[in-house]
């Protein structure tokens, strides 16, 4: 078994042409059909409505079939407005496992490889994205969302959102005896060295070296006062900006809900 990995990093200074070149390399080596697109900057129409859908379900692979992920409401799965923050926070872990095979006689012609999905999560369907009017060409005249790309794989009809700072890892496993077949794993996420690991509260506070009950109660008393102080600060001037942002978040959400109900 030979394993080979290719990596595409979207850095702040990466040019789109450079990314396109790297995708062409991947297409050539692994038989995929990637092309690079951008997310459109939504425009508000004169009647106040947006000219796209912000929220979409993501696709997942379950019981041998492609399904929409029904475990979460749509607005917690994909929302263009929060996508860049989710990607930067490693909260949009798209991945797929594909099986590729060449049935023709000419094994050099990898572009003829057939791809089939064997596992998948947190990717967009190309049809859904088109229907929602989210994507546009790289060199389109209309404004696009900065720092955000869509890697579209046409053979499987999947869209992998990528943001500045994220990395796409394509891994190929191939059995040396069956050189016309290989397995591809495609994953988008932060590079491992940049992944923020939020520590578990239980490791830092009374984890394995748990103090005796008296010490714990003493510290609890202090922490309770501190927490009360921190929470009451939510009405203060210092937190005004957060309060306003959270209020507008709820208003925005309520407006979207109203529209869906109508």
């Amino acid at each position, binding site marked *: 078994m030979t394993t080979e990995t290719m990596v595409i990093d979207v850095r702040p200074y990466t040019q789109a042409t450079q990314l396109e070149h790297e995708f062409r390399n991947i297409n050539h080596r692994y038989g995929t059909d990637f092309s690079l697109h951008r997310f459109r900057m939504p425009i508000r129409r004169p009647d106040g409505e947006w000219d796209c859908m912000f929220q979409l379900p993501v696709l997942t692979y379950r019981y041998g079939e492609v399904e929409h992920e029904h475990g979460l409401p749509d607005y917690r799965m994909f929302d263009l407005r929060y996508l860049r923050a989710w990607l930067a926070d490693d909260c949009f872990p798209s991945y797929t496992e594909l099986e590729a095979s060449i049935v023709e006689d000419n094994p050099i012609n990898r572009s003829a490889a057939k791809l089939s999905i064997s596992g998948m999560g947190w990717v967009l369907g190309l049809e859904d994205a088109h229907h929602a009017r989210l994507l546009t060409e790289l060199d389109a005249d209309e404004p696009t969302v900065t720092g955000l790309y869509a890697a579209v794989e046409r053979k499987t009809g999947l869209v992998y959102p990528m943001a500045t700072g994220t990395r796409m890892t394509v891994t190929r496993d191939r059995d040396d005896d069956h050189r016309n077949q290989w397995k591809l794993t495609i994953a988008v996420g932060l590079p491992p060295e940049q992944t923020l690991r939020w520590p578990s509260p239980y490791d830092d506070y009374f984890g394995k070296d748990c103090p005796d009950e008296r010490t714990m109660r003493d510290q609890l008393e202090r*922490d309770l006062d501190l927490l009360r102080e921190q929470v009451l600060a939510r009405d203060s001037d210092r937190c005004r*900006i957060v309060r306003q942002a959270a209020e507008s978040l709820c208003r925005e959400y309520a407006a979207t809900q109203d529209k869906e109900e109508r």
Partner: protein
Amino acid sequence: MNAMIMPAAAPQLDSHLSFDESTMPDDDIDLFDFPPSLDDWARDKKVCQYFNADDEAETCGTDPEYFIRADHCWDPGCHEVHTWYYCLRHFAANIGYLAREICALPTDLELTRYVRCGDIPPRYQLIEWGRIGEEGTHELPHDSARTVR
């Protein structure tokens, strides 16, 4: 009848079928590893709700003494009041973490970490905390939580 394959709750049956409740395996509910209710981990009473996010088999399950109540979770679309129950140790751990890290973030980080991701910051979620039985007795003034909602 093998009690292990019986469901934890009586299934909805057609009206012409009857179901003898005495055969329900009330005492064997511990056999089921999936908790029907997150509050009690499939037991008859409330237990501490601690579980290790990295290893979900690691739970606490001792008698809870304390509670934490929040108006809404991260989700701006969730309209439920959530209550979590904990034993002393895990309550103290949660309060310490909330007080020193989660609710102590500077405002810019609170914006990038929560609001930009479409989440309500925890500072605006909390209603009250304390000993079980004292629910509703010392609610924090939550004008801002209400207006946020």
